[in-house]
């Protein structure tokens, strides 16, 4: 077994050296005409839900919900998130009911065969700002704003070598929120000299698939009023909405990590017991 592990380590080292050479050679690219995106890597932020004991900060999620409601929801749908799940943000049943009632949803057909609109119930999902993807695209220069239900898991900047290996040890799973924060705070820079920015798009070196995107800077300092005393800055807004979107994409994250801890404790204790049993059973046999 020791030999096997040693061999594996040697094999791994060989690969590391080979990959290092290739990586370095591919790294160089032109500043004005970049071919790899994003141009700038996202900054790694501190998230309450990172790590083995991560949990959502309910205050932060409530602030994020406010931003989504007041700013993002004008263009971005979130059709997989039901109002009822907002109770997980610390709201009471009555508060959720009142929150849902602020929205109108289509229902029907009724007994007369007519579709009708009514106030949303907790069992309804966030209504979409556009009736369909075509309408969304038509109203937004041809680029339909993506749905937000899963966006925090659907975006992640490639980590590259060797971080994709160290990420296993650090349990890094926050590529989505880091990216969202980086994108929202990444506007306003002047593009490098000689770079052509297509008309109707906005330069953002953090955008994952091009040098510019159709969405203009959506959040500015002081735009959303917080009532819990949190700073009303772009950086704070970006973190709050990113955390909220992570919750929207992975509502069972806390439950998962809590269950994981119990499973790990059990498995490690069980492994110890099985190992002791194995030692005793094999004690009289040389092998």
């Amino acid at each position, binding site marked *: 077994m020791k030999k096997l592990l040693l061999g594996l380590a040697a094999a*791994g080292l060989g*690969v590391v050296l080979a*990959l290092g050479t290739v990586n370095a050679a*591919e790294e160089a690219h032109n500043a004005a005409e970049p071919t790899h995106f994003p141009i700038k890597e996202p900054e790694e932020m501190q998230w309450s839900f990172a790590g083995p004991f991560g949990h959502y900060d309910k205050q932060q999620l409530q602030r994020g919900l406010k931003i989504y409601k007041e700013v993002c929801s004008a263009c971005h749908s979130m059709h997989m998130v039901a109002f009822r799940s907002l109770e997980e943000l610390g709201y009471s049943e009555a508060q959720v009911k009142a929150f849902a009632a602020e929205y109108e949803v289509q229902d029907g057909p009724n007994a007369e065969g007519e579709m009708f609109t009514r106030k949303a119930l907790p069992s309804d999902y966030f209504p979409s700002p556009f009736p369909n993807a075509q309408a969304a695209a038509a109203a937004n220069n041809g680029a339909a704003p993506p749905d937000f239900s899963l966006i925090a898991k*659907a975006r992640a900047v490639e980590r590259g070598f060797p971080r994709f290996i160290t990420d296993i040890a650090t349990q890094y799973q926050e590529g989505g929120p880091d990216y969202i924060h980086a994108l929202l705070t990444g506007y306003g820079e002047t593009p490098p000299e000689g770079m052509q920015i297509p008309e109707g798009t906005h330069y953002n070196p953090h955008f994952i698939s091009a040098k510019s995107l159709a969405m203009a800077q959506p959040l500015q300092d002081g735009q959303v009023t917080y009532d819990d005393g949190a700073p009303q800055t772009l950086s704070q807004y970006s973190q709050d909405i990113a955390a909220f979107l992570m919750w929207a*994409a992975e509502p069972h994250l806390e439950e998962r990590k809590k269950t994981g801890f119990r499973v790990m404790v059990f*498995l490690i204790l069980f492994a110890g017991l099985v190992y002791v049993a*194995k030692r005793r059973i094999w004690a009289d*046999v040389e*092998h």
Partner: protein
Amino acid sequence: MSGGHSSYTPGTGIEKWIDARLPLPRLVYDSFVAYPVPRNLNYAYAFGGILAIMLVSQILTGVVLAMHYAADVGLAFNSVEKIMRDVNSGWLLRYLHSNGASMFFLAVYVHIFRGLYYGSYKAPRELLWILGVIILLLMMATAFMGYVLPWGQMSFWGATVITGFFTAFPVIGDPIQQLLLGGFAVDNPTLNRFFSLHYLLPFMIAGVVVLHVWALHVTGQTNPTGIEVKSKTDTVAFTPYATVKDAFGMVIFFILFAYFVFYLPNYMGHPDNYIQADSLKTPAHIVPEWYFLPFYAMLRAITFNIGPINSKLGGVLTMFGSIAILFIVPWLDTSKIRSAVYRPWYKLFFWLFVANAIMLGWLGSRPAEGLYTLFSQLGTAYYFGFFIVLMPLLGLIETPRRLPNSITEAVLAKTRSGGQPAGVAAAPETRA
């Protein structure tokens, strides 16, 4: 079984009654209790058991997931998200199933490397090895079709690319592709037949596993020395010795499995698969799941035409060939010595093969351009060179180390003396 005659003696009247009619308890006793295994097996031999339990885990989680899944292009993506959000413990089932596939492949690759290292494919175990390669092929088909089911962007485009391989074959290519797809492009009929087959194939795997274990129990297990069992002292009873050792290996493997399920559930997946499939938007880089990456790298390494074979067909043949060549490994290896422990040169080239496979995996995730292509070509050359050139050649020119006379001698030499014979010292089966 290899140990000779059945040693099962029914104790009670009920056991005698059953044994006279359907001797299933006898079969279980002879196969998993009294069955003799070499006493020097190390933890690399635990992966067979780990794979069996992973197959069971995948089938159990899969059956429950199928109760909530809707195989329709309009519903599939949302039904998976319903599982993640609203089904009780649905997130756990789905993460167990998706990460379980990765763990299954991790285990099967270790299992195959173990076989290559200790020469487990050599006579009289050729059929055992070939059945294993068939299981690998079935696993690959199952995993590929399972990845299509969530109907994300990578599901859709992966299916488009992989079924597109078949069009490389002249004449029969297009009809095969249309049969696979149920049409001219990946669409609802594709999803439906993939779901049907994804549910069917695991049971076919289970069937071949039965044959695989049967063949194993006829020939008996190999061991790190590669010397056949010669006397009773070479072996121990499967239960409790191998059972408890395998159980420990399984629990350790579960710790790794649980670590990914609970803390890194999306590490092995691709973010694009959380975007619903869109036939009008091609992802920037279409990459398969990590366990297909070495084969994907070899597919893309063929960027040149070879005579009448264009680069596309050449790539597809190379990729299929990389699995097909495993079928003839028992006849490519000319060495009379089984275990790499006593073959210094084979051992070196074996570990290079492992490093090369990992490198190919990484290259498969890179865009096919520049130096990446060159390295992929070198890696592909070594992959095939290992089987076609090194395996036959080394057996003829290599001077093996001295073999111990028996498993018992090897074990005793290792545990009793500090100054061991060179060959025995190299044995990797250190005390676990």
